[in-house]
């Protein structure tokens, strides 16, 4: 009887304390101060159990078709990498300030079942930055993303870097390079900001060398033999060849890079 009274008193005090913390705004909800470790663990465990419970009866389709993985990669690049990053790719600066931080998906691909990943992509997670994609992606695309996330842990950072466009755009690569289109691509990717380029008008700020006569030049960036293939590779990821170069990767697709290279090769 006495024990019960103590128990009730304890419960009452706990409720009172909880009400005070919430009602008086004592809990720090800012994203500049993380939860206490026990709170963080509690929330994480609650999330995991909740997803596991809801995902366990979902039937997963086959997820190993290359076309499906490639489709997943394109969606991943458009919609996931900004917050989650990728092998060798940091999240956008804003995403570094998210609390909770987004999980690197190479880890999720290793540890989580396809059903688990599918459920989280589809439904999102409350009070985190993870949105629900159910009304954004078609059903098949949800599974494409899962297929790519499951594939992700098998990719090294450099393999991921080469994947950016290259694999998915195999079809594009069978096209003949189009120099005229390449000139327009050079214009559209803002190359003239730093280079003088025949027939393109812009700041020509000379951060890089002139591209007049580039087709007859022997080297690219001082480091690569000047061939159209090397030029396309250089344009897409200059730092793979010259670690300290000022030239940024502009997110150029494989097709656009090949067309640019064709135009540049014609500049004698």
């Amino acid at each position: 009887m006495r024990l019960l009274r103590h128990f009730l008193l304890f419960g009452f005090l706990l409720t009172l304390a909880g009400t005070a913390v919430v009602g008086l705004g004592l809990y720090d909800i800012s994203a500049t101060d993380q939860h206490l470790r026990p709170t963080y663990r509690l929330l994480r465990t609650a999330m995991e159990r909740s997803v596991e419970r809801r995902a366990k009866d979902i039937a997963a389709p086959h997820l190993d078709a290359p076309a499906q993985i490639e489709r997943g990669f394109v969606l991943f690049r458009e919609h996931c990498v900004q917050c989650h990053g990728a092998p060798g790719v940091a999240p956008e600066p804003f995403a570094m300030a998210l609390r909770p931080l987004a999980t690197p998906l190479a880890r999720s691909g290793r540890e989580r079942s396809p059903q688990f990943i599918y459920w989280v992509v589809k439904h999102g997670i409350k009070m985190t930055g993870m949105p629900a994609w159910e009304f954004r992606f078609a059903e098949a695309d949800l599974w494409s993303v899962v297929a790519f996330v499951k594939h992700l842990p098998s990719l090294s950072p450099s393999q991921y870097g080469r994947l950016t466009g290259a694999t998915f755009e195999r079809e594009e690569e069978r096209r003949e390079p189009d120099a005229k289109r390449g000139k327009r691509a050079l214009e559209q990717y803002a190359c003239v900001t730093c280079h003088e380029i025949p027939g393109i008008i812009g700041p020509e700020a000379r951060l890089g060398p002139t591209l007049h006569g580039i087709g007859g030049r022997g080297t690219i960036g001082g480091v690569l033999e000047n061939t159209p293939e090397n030029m396309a590779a250089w344009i897409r990821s200059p730092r793979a060849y010259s670690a300290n170069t000022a030239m940024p990767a502009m997110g150029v697709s494989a097709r656009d890079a090949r067309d640019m290279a064709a135009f540049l090769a014609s500049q004698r």
Partner: protein
Amino acid sequence: MRLALIGLALLLAACGKDPPAVEGDPENGRLLLRQFGCGDCHDIPGVATAKGRAGPPLAGVAGRVYLGGVVPNTPESMAEFIRNPRRLEPRTRMPDLGVTHAHARDMVAYLYTLR
């Protein structure tokens, strides 16, 4: 009216501003660039035999923001790049030609006249 003219004159003066003072003897630098065979790879205005196309043309090199794409262009960094290109870009195809400090300074003095 007079004020406007003075303003215009000042503006023109600002546009045609002189290159930064570079130590060294530009004329000697021009000869050295020729002797060291820089023109085998670079097109260098004013150096008769320098019509190479392995590297970028050096016309206007004084106004270029980076050297070799990797280092901000100053007379000091240009001399360093000439003397020891691989220290600044380990994979560069530009060779180390054993240029002395004094020679590099004169080469830079000439290259900095190419605006």
